[in-house]
């Protein structure tokens, strides 16, 4: 048996109210008002496809950090680097070691499902435990309909032969050069063709054909489908596909459009994660992904799905939410407006690649040291132990702090240091079990920070080097989030 062995998700905490977008453009685009309901997920200034991928992967790997991961596939069309392997950074941030096959899968909205198919094919060949992540932060011009329709997010799966929670029954791909939109090399934004043509000549013809072939490959009749995971921003397109296949409309999975928006290559995977969170054993899940053709995968959940430890997933990510109603902030975070940043922002953030390489485990994986003599954990790892009663030399083994909970010892909210979203919060955080770091905070609200507060480390953008097109990543402290607590709080509220 091959299939999915675990899953995870990440949706940025910020949700931009669509009303704020509509209001900003009403003067010249009154027609956008029809899209003005609900909210869209929006990356914080220090999030991108890669940081979201790390979070989705951490969620997926919850409780299985000791298992070997032989391969990492990262699907996205909005990766931060065109030529520096993004999946390699993802693997390093997760501390997967160097003996790992890594690949970026990109250039099509199918990239997330194509990455998943590649991993499943490898599993057929005997590879177990690979990680597949799809993540997207799609940029649009200000005032485009897609600005309202899109959202940011990531989903992750492990694929293998042991502990399968959703067995692969079959899959099929149609590759058709149907150009509904494209983005040329070195272009910032997509160029889109007419919606009605995309729907009638593309989506409604290509998708049903691909699903029929996948169902045939799986040997599954349409009426056995428990969930059809199919998303489109085209009006009623998913319903029409379901109807043409003889699948009742109530089997269509929630599109996540109301609260998240269409998250590009990550969207079908995100919907699949949500379906898996609520599925019992024996359910048939069909996931289809449209883009220059169509990928379709057919899964059946197993008994093991009930035993998977609880994770944040889509439900937890939706609960970890802060409404943003300031559209100007969205423009600023996405580089859609030339803003006065002040002279302090002019500091040169050139990165010494030699130094980055020497300290790659420390900088990408938050790896510090444990003294073999006195047991003191410390960050960074150093040649002489920091414990004043020890100071042993050359005594430290590597210790990874990224998954260790921490609490705030000191903090301030700084209005002086340049930050795209001031004030900049930072302070000393103390790790449970020893070790500490003076770290920037992220995803905190003004007035909510206090000494003793529980924190969790997150992989984020530290600095942008706009002069050279580089971005630096490092770990920041964010308020701890307990999905169980949020779920019970919302249940109590009901």
């Amino acid at each position, binding site marked *: 048996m091959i299939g999915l062995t675990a899953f995870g998700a990440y949706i940025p905490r910020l949700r931009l109210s669509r009303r704020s977008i509509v209001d900003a453009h009403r003067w010249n685009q009154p027609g956008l008002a029809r899209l003005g309901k609900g909210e869209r997920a929006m990356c914080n200034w220090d999030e991108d496809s890669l940081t979201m991928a790390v979070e989705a992967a951490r969620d997926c790997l919850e409780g299985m950090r000791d298992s070997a991961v032989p391969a990492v596939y990262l699907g996205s069309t909005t990766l931060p680097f065109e030529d520096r392997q993004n999946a390699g950074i993802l693997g390093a941030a997760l501390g997967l070691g160097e003996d790992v096959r890594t690949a970026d899968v990109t250039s099509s909205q199918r990239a997330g499902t194509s990455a998943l198919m590649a991993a499943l094919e490898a599993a057929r060949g005997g590879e177990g435990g690979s990680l597949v992540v799809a993540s997207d932060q799609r940029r649009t011009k200000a005032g485009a309909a897609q600005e309202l329709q899109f959202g940011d997010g990531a989903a992750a799966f492990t694929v293998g032969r042991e502990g399968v929670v959703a067995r692969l029954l079959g899959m099929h791909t149609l590759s058709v050069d149907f150009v509904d939109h494209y983005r040329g090399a070195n272009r910032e934004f997509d160029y889109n063709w007419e919606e009605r043509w995309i729907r009638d000549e593309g989506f409604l013809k290509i998708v049903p054909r691909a699903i029929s072939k996948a169902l045939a490959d799986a040997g599954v009749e349409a009426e056995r489908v428990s969930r059809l995971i199919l998303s489109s921003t085209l009006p009623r397109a998913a319903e029409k596909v379901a109807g043409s296949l003889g699948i009742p409309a109530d089997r269509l999975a929630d599109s996540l459009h109301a609260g998240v928006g269409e998250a590009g290559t990550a969207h079908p995977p995100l919907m699949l994660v949500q379906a898996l969170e609520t599925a019992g054993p024996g359910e048939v899940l069909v996931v289809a992904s449209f883009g220059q053709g169509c990928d379709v995968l057919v899964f059946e959940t197993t008994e093991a799905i009930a035993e998977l430890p609880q994770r944040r997933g889509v439900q937890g990510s939706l609960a970890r939410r802060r409404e943003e109603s300031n559209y100007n902030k969205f423009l600023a975070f996405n580089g859609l407006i030339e803003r006065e940043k002040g002279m302090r922002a002019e500091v040169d953030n050139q990165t010494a690649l030699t130094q980055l390489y020497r300290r790659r485990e420390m900088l990408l994986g938050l790896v510090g040291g444990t003294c073999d003599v006195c047991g003191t954990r410390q960050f960074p790892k150093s040649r002489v132990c920091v414990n004043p009663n020890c100071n042993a030399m050359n005594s430290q083994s590597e210790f990874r702090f990224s998954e260790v909970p921490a609490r705030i010892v000191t*903090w301030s909210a700084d209005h002086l240091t340049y930050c795209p979203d001031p004030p900049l919060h*930072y302070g000393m955080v103390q790790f449970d079990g020893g*070790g500490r770091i003076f770290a920037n905070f992220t995803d905190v609200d003004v007035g909510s920070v206090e000494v003793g507060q529980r924190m969790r480390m997150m992989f984020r953008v530290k600095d942008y080097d706009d002069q050279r097109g580089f971005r630096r990543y490092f770990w920041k402290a964010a308020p701890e989030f307990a999905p169980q607590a949020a779920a019970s709080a919302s249940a109590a509220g009901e």
Partner: protein
Amino acid sequence: MASGIKDKVAILGMGCSNFGERWDCDPEDLMVEAFEECLGDAGIETRQIEAAWLATAIEEIHVGKGGLPLSFGLRLPYIPVTRVENFCASGSEALRGAVYAVASGACDVALALGVEKLKDTGYGGLPQRSRGVLNSMWWANYSAPGAFAQLAAAYRAKHGIAVDELKRAMAHVSVKSHENGAKNPKAHLRNRITEEKVLDAPMVAEPLGIFDCCGVSDGAACAIVTTPEIAKSLGKTDLVTVKALQLSVSNGVESGYSSWDGSHFMTARIASRKAYEEAGIKDPRAEISLAEVHDCFSITELVTMEDLHLSPEGGGVKDVLDGFYDADGGLPCQIDGGLKCFGHPIGASGLRMLYEMYLQLQGRAGDRQVKDPKFGLTHNLGGAPHQNVCSVAIVGSYDG
């Protein structure tokens, strides 16, 4: 057992430029302004100086690297000139070099000069520069006020003090320094302020408002030192000698080990204890007449009074609010206005503090003169609470 520095070196002369936004001055102008006063006070000629130390912290802002800026600026006669940098303790570090040179017998007369030209950046506050290839990749992005503001959060948590009470004590620190600075013709900020004004000021780094932060200034200060014997032979009376010079530098315990609670300076506790021992001071609260401490921010001064063992731990707020450190209090602190109002040209600050102590001990401090001071303490703190260098110096009248 080392005998320490006590009474081995005397101050022969001192000078200090006006501090402030010296838009019309190059570092050369500031150095010469301080040096002219110093040379006149010492009553010697430039050619009698045998070695010199230059303190400047942020060399890429106008002053330059190495010993050249000082040697060129004063046309020193091809003598040894060493540039030192130890954050905000740079000026005290230059003094240490000159004092130790004289004490060792390597030379008879040495110069320590500190200078900083900060107002060529185009914005307020300290210059923002890269922190180095590795540090810039993992240190939190932070500013000086944000780093020192951390003390307030930890101090409140440790001592269970309400934010309003701590803010009030911090405001008193600043109001007191403005009161003192108003009387100082060389000070950068000479206006009096009220507690309300401090509390209503715009926030810089929670909980520090704009009046909780010191001035960022251009300026220079310097000292010529020699042995007490040579000073006497040059006709000097009322000698001021160095009683203690201590420096403590963090090694990573605060930022990397789990013992430090964030509410105080480990270095200041160590450096001050050693300084009292070197100076032979048993009860610093009773024996120290005056203190010039590194009040880069109001909260720094408040916790520093405890770290210098002048206020009991947790008792700083009460002492401040009781006026113990006011000009008419038991232990006047920042009698010249401090960093807060005299200003903070980084490399010059340690020597500026010494300048005030020297004037006070010689009874030459004018409107600010304190009655019969015996020991004056200066304290510099460079870096951030979680990793810093701290210097403590004690000077006093010479009885020999």
